[in-house]
């Protein structure tokens, strides 16, 4: 159960009916079939019973907390289930991809129009997608970016960091400006917004468009120069992770 369960099936045993429904919606990407779900659901009940007994045993022996490694394992794999090849690193999945960047005009935090393609062409790029009213995910990603910026020190001017809003109508240049100030973004870290259509076009190009901003997932993209493939980190890559990926790209 710990190994060889396969990435696709790893969290199914924990799902109840509602979870199954949510998963079924995702099935385009995960290609889980009903048979697997039923099979795994049965296993879930068995596991839950076992778990309760273990809890009981632990409590009656005064052993709190009780470690159950299987659960901790699941947790670590939470970010992997959309991708065929999970990486070694914990917490995010690294893939390489080529994206065709749409030739759209976006706006920077000063309201100036910029061409996304040419903006991304000049230097090594570290890029993510955010929105300013976001609750859980973006503050972590933006704090991580500001840690990356800090760790780069004076070297930061050799890299172009970009955060693109996925809620562009709310995130006006003025809103992005105060967001940038909040996270201490230096001149190498650019926040971009634009029309809804253009934002969606960019999200689609990077395969992060989920139809609704609240459905977004954390992802970071790195590219050493135009024409090279992108390194895509799905999940919460830490500043150290991003820096390591960046070094690897720029020293090769």
């Amino acid at each position: 159960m710990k190994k060889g369960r396969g990435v696709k099936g790893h969290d199914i045993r924990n799902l109840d009916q509602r979870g199954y429904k949510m998963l079924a919606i995702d099935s385009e990407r995960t290609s889980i079939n009903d048979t697997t779900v039923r099979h795994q659901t049965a296993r879930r009940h068995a596991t839950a019973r076992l778990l309760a007994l273990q809890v009981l045993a632990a409590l009656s022996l005064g052993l709190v907390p009780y470690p159950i490694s299987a659960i901790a394992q699941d947790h670590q794999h939470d970010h992997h289930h959309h991708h065929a090849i999970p990486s070694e690193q914990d917490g995010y999945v690294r893939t390489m991809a080529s994206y065709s960047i749409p030739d759209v005009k976006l706006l920077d935090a000063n309201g100036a129009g910029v061409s996304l393609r040419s903006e991304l062409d000049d230097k090594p790029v570290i890029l993510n997608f955010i929105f300013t009213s976001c609750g859980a995910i973006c503050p972590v990603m933006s704090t991580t970016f500001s840690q990356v910026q800090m760790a780069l020190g004076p070297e930061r001017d050799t890299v172009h960091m970009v955060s693109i809003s996925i809620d562009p109508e709310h995130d006006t240049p003025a809103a992005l400006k105060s967001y940038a100030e909040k996270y201490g973004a230096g001149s190498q870290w650019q926040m971009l917004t634009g029309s809804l259509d253009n934002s969606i076009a960019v999200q689609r190009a990077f395969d992060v468009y989920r139809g609704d901003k609240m459905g977004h997932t954390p992802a970071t993209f790195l590219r050493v120069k135009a024409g090279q493939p992108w390194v895509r980190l799905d999940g919460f890559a830490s500043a150290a992770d991003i820096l390591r990926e960046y070094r690897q790209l720029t020293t090769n």
Partner: protein
Amino acid sequence: MRTVRRVLAGLSLLLSQGGLAAEPADSHVGQSLYRNGLSASGEPVRATVQKGVALSGADAACVKCHRRSGLGGSEGQNPIRPIAGRLLFSSQGKLERAGRWAIPASSAAVRPPYTRNSLARALREGIDPAGRPLDALMPRYDLSDEEIAQLQAYLEGLSSTAAPGVTDREIHFSTIITPDISSDRRSAMLDVLQGFFRDKNGGTRKETRRREAGSEQMYRAFRTWVLHVWELKGSPETWGAQLAAYYRQQPVFAVIGGIGGASWQPVHAFCEAFEVPCVFPDVDYPDVAGTGYYPLYFTRGVTLEAEVLAKHLLETGPSGGAIVQVYRDHALGRLPAQGLREYLQGKSRKTVIDYPLSEAGRLPVDFLSRLAGNERLSTLVLWLDSTDLAVLDPAAALPDGLEAIYVSASLSVMRRPSLPENWLSKLRMVYPFDLPATREQRLARMNAWLRARNIPLSDERTQANAFFAATVTGDAMSHLGENFSRDYFIERIEQMTQSALSPSIYPHLSLGPGQRFASKGGYVVRFSPGKGGTPIAISEWLIP
């Protein structure tokens, strides 16, 4: 299984009694921790999420993810658990007993009740009462015992009782109509709302029996919907008292739709003071200060129009000359004029000349020639309603060099005003709505709904806005289950407006945490020549 969990709950209760000594708890301080991430001394709380990402203050506040209701939600693939006390301090994980909040997305949702000790451990170390690590996104906090007690005190009261307006059998809503609304517009809205309520309550003959059986929350949550029409009378200063009296007579869970002609401020203040969600009224003068939590609006009304126009003038502006804006000289009449002026301030070198018309004043026949003085009048902005526009003198010659005349779609009721041909050729309208061609497709669903109920399509804006307000309320209510929390209701609408299937007269509506205006921009249009005149966009969708 049920027996096992009961025993388990009992055991952890016993264990908790040997825990931390009870601290003097202050739920008010707890609220500040919860909502603002600030301790009693006003210091920002500090926390770390996975791999050393440090958060503090507002970014680390519970409300940021668990939301004001404490009933959680989801973001991306991250389920955000409910932490309102009655759910936190009870065991979770069994569908029938714990309600929809406990429906586990993973086995991590199955756990014994939280206690003071296990709450402290969850907050500091990120370990749940079953000994499992919480999601990496859950911050690990640096909190004192006292602060944890304060937070616990706050959580215990959070979303703990059903909001007023909900009885065992009924849920009450109201809609609000200001006295200056025509009876046609009033009935256009009420036909839609009442039709929706009839639908909602129709075909549910088994629901009351299912509710009494009480086996599942979905059934237990069933309530008959009751709509109250709160008609305001007299001057706006008296509306607050009238609304309070209506509310005392029959508290409502939320206000759906509503129409305001003049000021909506007294209604806004009522919604805030009584913490009643006021969902998408059809108004041109919402409170745009952005301080409200409970009122949700379609747009910022005439203020949005003024800023859309200002942006348009900045981007495409006429080659020179002065901008003259004419408006009624009263508090509401001044709003768009002020909005335009302020937006252009410091961004444009053009002269803006204000021409206030006294409250009862008519437009003087020869006013245009006198307006710009020595400067060329290039842009004329008429912040006037259709009645005022109708009194423009058709015989008046247009000033030399006048390039464009702008009017407001809201004030003109979205229709091309009847003006002489030489005026119409220069007429532009600020148009914060979807354009007719796409709007018609988008509203097809509503039109079918109206036809099926023998409701004539009499006023597209009023009816579409009422239809959207009603359907989004219906969708949000079905998410609440029996958690009749107004905060949770607002949170659901914030989350679902973007993906709502319900059609609207706006190109796209979207809210998010804390966002209060769903449509953020507007077009500038001209009209096709000929009878009727179709609006044709001459700008992009402009977002000021």
